[in-house]
């Protein structure tokens, strides 16, 4: 909100005339031609920085695991790793969706409430119609989430109001809707006993020892990551976040793309709600409360720029994994659990500070090679 971008590209660079004219263009005096300056190294550098960024999270993760294992070797037991992956799955799905929104220079703070609403909706659905196939429940939960996302996205895209404010409002409104629904039906809590066994099996199910919930999260991340990188509309999302005005002038349907990002994010929050229901099997109107902090934190820690335009779903997923691991590791390290929130906060700050430093260095490198004056 604070950052206003003027000219999208730094103006502090210097220019020298392009060189080696193509044959059909008039000759430029050869002595004016400058040697190649940007070089292929530019992209290599960028690539390296991105990799460094994600490797950095991975390294932090490894360090944490190694230290924890040193203190408590059972940390890496099959059961514990499974539990960890299970815990990370819901946050990962949310972070993947949030990444898509943040990339467009928006944010969705209502995801925790959407998760709660969708979890409660799918729980209610299962209570009233226990024989429904799980797939239908999943789709229904996603539909609820998508509807919420549609509302968010529509207000943001049509009324052109900052998403921060809109989703702050819907964070409250959706939660209110959730509890209003619950109190009007009198079903304040849905317990494990109310849910059909077929659905509950999803929560603990494993394939080759890996929790199914985690596989779902991985699938979401892979699909989303591939989409954002390889499809035109995915690249346009980056364009919108990188320079919204330029995006409009380039004919990118900004409103529609942003709307889509919100709907997809809503649908994923809905999916997360169903996963939540399957995993926790006890649902009340507080499900998912406060998740928005961790979701945004996961994305930011994972290198997704809060002002859009850069970052990847993979990074966000790693961020989610790191945050979850911290939550699991602290008690096992014997640290006061009260330190967890403080650690999460410190990590967010460290992550953005690191990103900033890397970006500055990158910009300096890209520019530095242009200048021969000094």
């Amino acid at each position: 909100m604070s950052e206003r971008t003027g000219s999208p590209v730094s103006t502090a660079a210097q220019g020298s005339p392009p060189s080696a004219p193509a044959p059909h263009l008039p000759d430029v005096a050869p002595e004016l031609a400058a040697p190649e300056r940007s070089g292929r190294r530019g992209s290599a550098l960028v690539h390296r920085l991105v990799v460094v960024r994600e490797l950095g999270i991975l390294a932090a993760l490894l360090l944490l695991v190694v230290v924890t294992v040193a203190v408590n070797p059972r940390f890496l037991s099959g059961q514990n790793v499974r539990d960890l992956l299970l815990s990370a799955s819901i946050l990962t799905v949310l972070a993947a969706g949030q990444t898509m929104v943040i990339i467009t220079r928006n944010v969705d703070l209502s995801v925790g409430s959407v998760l709660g609403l969708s979890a409660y909706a799918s729980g209610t659905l299962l209570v009233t119609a226990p024989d429904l196939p799980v797939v239908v429940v999943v789709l229904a939960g996603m539909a609820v989430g998508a509807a919420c996302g549609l509302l968010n996205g529509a207000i943001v895209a049509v009324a052109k109001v900052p998403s921060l404010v809109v989703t702050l409002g819907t964070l409250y409104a959706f939660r209110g809707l959730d509890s209003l629904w619950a109190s009007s039906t009198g079903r304040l809590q849905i317990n494990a006993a109310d849910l059909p066994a077929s659905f509950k099996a999803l929560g603990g199910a494993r394939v080759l020892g890996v929790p199914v919930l985690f596989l779902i999260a991985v699938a979401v991340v892979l699909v989303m990551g591939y989409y954002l990188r390889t499809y035109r509309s995915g690249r346009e999302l980056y364009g919108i976040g990188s320079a919204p005005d330029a995006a409009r002038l380039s004919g990118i349907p900004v409103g529609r793309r942003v709307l889509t990002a919100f709907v997809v994010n809503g649908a994923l929050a809905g999916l997360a709600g169903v996963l939540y229901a399957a995993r926790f099997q006890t649902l009340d109107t507080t499900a998912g409360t406060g998740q928005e902090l961790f979701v945004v934190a996961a994305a930011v820690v994972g290198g997704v720029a809060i002002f859009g335009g850069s970052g990847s779903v993979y990074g966000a997923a790693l961020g989610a994994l790191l945050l979850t691991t911290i939550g699991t590791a602290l008690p096992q390290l014997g640290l006061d659990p009260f330190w967890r929130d403080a650690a999460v906060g410190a990590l967010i700050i460290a992550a953005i500070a690191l990103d900033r430093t890397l970006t500055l260095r990158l910009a300096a490198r890209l520019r530095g090679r242009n200048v021969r004056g000094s």
Partner: protein
Amino acid sequence: MDRTQRPAASGDVVLALEDVDKSFGAVAALRGARLELRAGEAHALVGENGAGKSTLVKILAGVHAPDGGRLLLDGAPVHLDSPAAARAAGIAVIYQEPTLFPDLSVAENIYMGRQPLSGGRRIDRRALAARCRELFDRLGVHMDPDRPARGLSIADQQMVEIAKALSFDARVLVMDEPTAALSGVEVERLFAVARALRAAGAAVLFISHRFEEVFGLCDRITVMRDGRWVSTAPTAELTVDQVVRAMVGREVASLFPKQDVEAGDVVLEVRGLTRRGVFSDISFDVRAGEIVALAGLVGAGRSEVVRAVFGVDGYDAGSVRVGGRPLKKGSPAAAMAAGIALVPEDRRQQGLVMELSVERNATLTRRWKLARAGLLSTRAERATAADWARKLQVKAGKLADPVSTLSGGNQQKVVLAKWLSTEPRVLIVDEPTRGIDVGTKSEVHRLMSRLAADGLAVVMVSSELPEVLGMADRVLVMHEGRLVDDIPRARADEDSVMLAATGQGGTAVVR
């Protein structure tokens, strides 16, 4: 470009605007505007700032929809209701300010939304880079397609924009003041591209304030004034004077009226100023009553030097003295206290707070001086602002209106008022007349001349050679971050300045 696909033969009207109206709220930007572009012509659109040129461009680009009138493409009415529609119609636009995505690669910037695809509608990255390289080869640009646009120089950004426009195989290429940020060589390169396109049968619409470019490139000239069409005529039948008269609607006084003044004491001393990677070892003096121009190509580091002198940027080595006293570095407040004023390069971003009122802008630099016991009254601000508005003949509806409602020239006067009211000893002006209309331009020049006569030391950064030659007592020329020449008025001409600016001049030892 695929030249075989062009349906229009040379000379056919490709695109026409008929009686187009456009208003923003109560403000009518266009009233019955007209334009006719033929295949194979370069067509200039000129007019003072506020004449409606940019609005017209945005209508062609599909950004704004006209309120009335018609657009005809190949003689058939067409609705360009989005930038995408304009593109589909074969209209490519290069805007005044580059509009790139800093986080995306150069190749993606060029092909955004049109990336080559392989199976399953996936982007074919290899083909993308290859096409981009091909395009760059045609343009003679050497840039890595995979590097991000972040960190590109303005000129390079403009090159990417040009490449983008080329990649459309556009039938109509609109260039809205593309040369404002380019230096001579780059302008030539751009014109080469425009001529090649024209030769291939495209229509080129060229918007510029620089008459030598307009007359050098264009076949016909359309003049606009106050949102209305004034005239369209072949360039060959026009003179600069005629065009200026049509634009302004009156006679204009001579352009560069600098009077000779006896230079006084040295007021500003810059010694060995160095900012790593940007400029190095810059030393010069400016005397009272003198106008010293800093010339050079865009990117030579001129603006960066004056920014460092004023303290907006820091520097790594060297010193600045004002009236013999050393100046604290990196502090605009200190520079102001010492009597330096800087009218910056970018009026909209740096010179003014566009959303604030004229009076607030005009008194922003004097807010402490106007305060009584720490309190500021709107009345005091208004009185001061009104005083300066009168002195500089600022045309504004109300002083409480946002400064963004003023024309470019009047905005520049507000910037000048803001700085002159600080009663500076050194006035630094960076591109003082960029993007302002002819009439105001000469007013500004007269003002600078008078200020120098009153004993101000004036430093002027300008990319317009005629302005430099007309106004400056001395011309300091920069090339790639170094000061390469110091040319007194008597010796300064286009050749000497350009040679030095391009690094060809004799390595004159400065100072």
